[in-house]
């Protein structure tokens, strides 16, 4: 039980927190799926008892897409550029972010949203770099959605010209279907994961603008065919840009920074 607002099991609810202010967490705005919002409707005065068909013909994720468009409009109005970083767990998203912030924070105003099922670990790592960060713990959820970003962004008050880095939950499947309102989606894969990632998770590669291949310092030790990854990724998405780098050695980071400058 949460002692601030008396909400139920923390494991199952989406909670947003800032490092150092864990007691002041907040929840998603708006209606909650778990509430029984059908009950009031039962008291309607017009009871129709005969069964009738309603043609809906709506995209199931239309509500998320609508909110994502709203986020995008908000970002554009403020001149904020938002990036959605996706990868499998352990590909090095947080390390890439930490290093990028350390190297570019004099040049760009960074704001970060961290998504994980549990813990403040990643937010604490970003907090140590000195930029504003909010942790979203999705509980059982396997991806961030536009409503979570909408709520987090309202808490951040992001200034004109800033760069918002959204680190999604580590997962190459689910986050691919949920537009957050970002300008560019960046998929990070790492050398030890193997070169068939684009074949196994085509939806993610199809929806990403940039593919970063991280941990190139490990290339001598594993069977990983860079050319094969490029070929697979371009088969599913001919427009995708591809960069190779190693956060650990710093090799290739310049090209990533160049890309960031060109796209924000």
């Amino acid at each position: 039980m949460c002692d601030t607002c008396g909400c139920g099991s923390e494991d199952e609810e989406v909670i947003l927190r800032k490092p150092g202010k864990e007691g002041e967490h907040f929840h998603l705005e708006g209606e909650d799926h778990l509430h029984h919002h059908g009950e009031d409707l039962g008291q309607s005065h017009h009871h129709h008892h005969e069964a009738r068909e309603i043609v809906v013909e709506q995209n199931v994720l239309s509500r998320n897409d609508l909110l994502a468009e709203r986020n995008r409009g908000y970002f554009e109005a403020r001149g904020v550029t938002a990036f959605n970083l996706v990868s499998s767990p352990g590909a090095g998203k947080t390390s890439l972010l930490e290093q990028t912030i350390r190297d570019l924070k004099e040049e760009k105003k960074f704001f970060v949203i961290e998504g994980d099922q549990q813990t403040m670990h990643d937010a604490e790592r970003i907090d140590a770099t000195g930029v504003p960060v909010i942790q979203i713990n999705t509980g059982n959820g396997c991806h961030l959605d536009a409503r979570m970003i909408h709520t987090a962004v309202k808490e951040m008050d992001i200034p004109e010209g800033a760069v918002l880095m959204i680190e999604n939950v580590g997962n190459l499947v689910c986050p691919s279907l949920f537009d957050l309102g970002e300008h560019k989606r960046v998929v990070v894969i790492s050398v030890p994961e193997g070169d068939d990632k684009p074949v196994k998770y085509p939806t993610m590669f199809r929806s990403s603008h940039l593919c970063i291949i991280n941990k190139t310092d490990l290339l001598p030790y594993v069977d990983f065919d860079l050319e094969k990854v490029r070929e697979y990724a371009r088969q599913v998405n001919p427009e995708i840009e591809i960069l190779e780098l190693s956060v650990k050695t710093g090799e290739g980071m310049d090209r990533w920074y160049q890309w960031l400058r060109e796209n924000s």
Partner: protein
Amino acid sequence: MHELSIAMSIVDLAEEYAAKEEAQRVLEMEIEVGELSGVVTEALDFAMEEAVAGTLCEKARWKIIPIPGEVRCRACGHVFPSDSLFSDCPRCGQAGVELVRGNEMRLRSILVE
């Protein structure tokens, strides 16, 4: 398990349309799921059981209608049925296709009373 989010979105959408019609409950839902949409039908089926609890759809039946995948060869433009985004063109043999159909995730219609 993004299927649970998708199931909850389906139920939300069905409730929204049912409420507009001042219906008391949803009896049936017809859901279209494309073969190339990244949604696992069995997982969605399972998630729907969770998602309908405590909603206007609680007693509803649902039907998941699969939409077959169709892709276009980027080299020669040939359109052919496929259940994968990595298929070689049966006409020219080239790899690299774009999606034509099969990405759907739609609530087609509901039956209410």
